[in-house]
């Protein structure tokens, strides 16, 4: 066993052997998802609560499917359907739910660090399903798994992350994960969307997408939230798209075997054009498929604790 933690909170705190172990384990769960009866009894009798303080379709569904395929009992609580809207603090909510003896909390929260605070206050395991602009560890793991389905190794691979790095937990978790595994990471976007001192996390910075594309083995395109215009970060979506949108013209200058990735949800025509998103280099839906396997692996290691 290479994983002895109570919680899975972030990629930054994992070492290489832990990441490798989780990726290997995820690979072993992929096969279950291809069966006609997609269920194993591994977590029978275990209770998993999805506590989501931020809207999510993909991640919550993915965790829920993963838990059910392991035969766990699952409950979902979202910001709009629980006492959260009545003004109960997150700690009170956690304590009340804990009193019902769950084994694992899967927590998404718009405030960076919230899963760390909650993990310290419960004896149940906590999985971070995304906190603010900080970490999204299951996404980074499924991204690495998807790359490894197509490339021999992460070591020496050039990964380009394009877009709103500043607000992206996906970018942060991937920078930590990929650099730990030996990949070279370049982040690219307008200077308003690159956080200060990102180089201290191990990524190189570029503002010229066209110069970065030919070198890249993997291009991860990030979602651009439309409200960034109002925050004076961008003059217009049109200009963003012209300089940083991933389109067919740009793809022509990329390596033949480049992988195009996107954590979703996609803004078609803004950060990625339909021909790229749906084209032969795109592994965007493979990422979604792998997400279930990765989340089964995480629930397995923590749920069996």
């Amino acid at each position, binding site marked *: 066993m290479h994983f002895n933690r109570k919680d899975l909170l972030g990629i930054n705190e994992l070492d290489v052997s832990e990441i490798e172990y989780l990726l290997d384990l995820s690979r072993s769960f992929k096969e279950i998802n291809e069966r006609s009866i997609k269920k194993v009894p591994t977590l029978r009798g275990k209770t998993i609560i999805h506590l989501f303080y931020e809207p999510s379709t993909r991640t919550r569904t993915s965790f829920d499917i993963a838990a059910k395929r392991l035969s766990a009992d699952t409950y979902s609580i979202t910001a709009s359907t629980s006492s959260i809207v009545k003004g109960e603090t*997150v*700690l009170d909510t956690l304590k009340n739910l804990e009193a019902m003896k769950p084994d694992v909390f899967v927590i998404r929260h*718009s*405030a960076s660090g919230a899963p760390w*605070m909650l993990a310290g206050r419960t004896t149940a395991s906590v999985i971070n399903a995304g906190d*603010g602009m900080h970490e999204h560890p299951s996404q980074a793991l499924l991204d690495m798994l998807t790359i490894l389905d197509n490339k021999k190794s992460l070591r020496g691979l050039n990964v380009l992350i394009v877009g709103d790095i500043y607000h992206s*937990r996906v970018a*942060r978790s991937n920078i930590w994960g990929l650099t730990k595994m030996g990949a070279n990471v370049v982040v690219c976007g307008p200077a308003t969307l690159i956080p200060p001192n990102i180089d201290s996390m191990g990524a190189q910075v570029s503002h010229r997408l066209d110069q970065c594309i030919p070198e890249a083995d993997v291009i991860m395109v990030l979602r651009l939230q439309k409200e960034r215009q109002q925050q004076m970060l961008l003059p217009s979506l049109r200009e963003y798209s012209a300089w940083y949108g991933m389109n067919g013209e740009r793809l022509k200058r990329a390596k033949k075997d480049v992988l195009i990735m996107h954590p979703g949800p996609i803004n078609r025509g803004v950060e990625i054009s339909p021909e790229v998103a749906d084209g032969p280099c795109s592994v965007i839906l493979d990422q979604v498929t792998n997400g279930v396997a990765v989340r089964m692996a995480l629930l397995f290691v923590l749920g069996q604790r």
Partner: protein
Amino acid sequence: MKPNENPANLILRNGRVIDPARGFDAVASVLIENGKVVEVGANIEIGTERRREFEQIDAGDKWIVPGLIDMHVHLREPGEEYKETISSGTRAAVAGGFTSVACMPNTHPVNDCAAVTQFILKKAADEGVCRVFPVAAISKGLEGRNLSEFGDLRAAGAAAVSDDGRPVEGSLLMRRALEYAKTFDLPVISHCEDLGLSAGGLMNEGRVSTRLGLRGIPRAAEEVMAARDILLAELTGARVHLAHISTAGSVALIREAKKRGIPVTAETAPHYFTLDEELLSTFDPVYKVNPPLRAREDIEAVKAGLRDGTIDVIASDHAPHSTVEKDLEFEYAANGMIGLESSLPLILRLVSDGVLSPAEAIAKVTQNPARILSIPFGALSKGAPADLTLIDPRVKYTIDARKFASKSRNCPFDGMEVQGRAVMTIVDGRVVFTAAD
């Protein structure tokens, strides 16, 4: 603090008397009669027939200093008595060695009219145990639109004006406040923050904010306003006091302004020369404060500013909050930390680290704030009301917030090993605090 009807006769014997205002630093005794300082000297003789009237206190190995002044605290009364009251806050003050505090106006209601100032002074007289100097609001309701009535507030007992907790955003309003305050000799205390630059910010902007995914507050948010206020002080000739300075850039701006003779003074808080932003890695809201904890290089610059006199004052910015405001997600937790009962040992650490001499350190919490506020305290002058603090500079202990007199517990120094504390606090000739061993 009630009028002293039974003023004590006391002799503090053979302590190291440090009185920066008079340039005095020697082993001596202090004679207090009828609540007033009568004599400070090496050989104080009182006739054998009168000896019985005086309580003798052996101050050997201790420092005897003018009563400490904290010119930046939040007492929360009126309005948020569950966090702190004038009673509990002044008890925290004297436990920390402070005999005078200046309390900021962001109460509910805001201290922007004579009635609230009078309420605070009445409460302090009835229930407080140290001197309280209300700081009134610059703008009505702290809304940054119209000036509050400085003349009325001064007459009611306000010691200064400030919109602390928020900046005066409009440069014209700040100009007018500085000019109008001159009319009434009221110091203007500025909370330097450009709200546009700090918007949504949760911690110092830089390497650590990027790593933690917490929105950053750039140093420039403080420095832009510090620069503006310095220029407005130059324009108007009015004194401006810059509160809770936290960045190397602000220290440089103030140093330069002083060199040019602009009437600016500045203060910092113990957390800005003791704690750095790396502590936020725990996401513990006890470290959330505005301005935010900065980087090591800022801490060094603040210390250098204290050493060369660029920063005149150390004040705690004592900001009590209950668990209702603090035991939350970092993003939603309130800014602020309490400091009255942890300030002195952290100031003394500057002495043991060689940043300040004992006299320089004591001046930052006695002579200098008294000068800025124009209050007749902060010195052991003959005939002055006897406000004194007896300090044991050697005692080592662990700060334990559970034992604080403050009603709140949001102290980032809880559990820290420190050296030095107030062992006796005397206000107006009355012993109001004695340390339990």
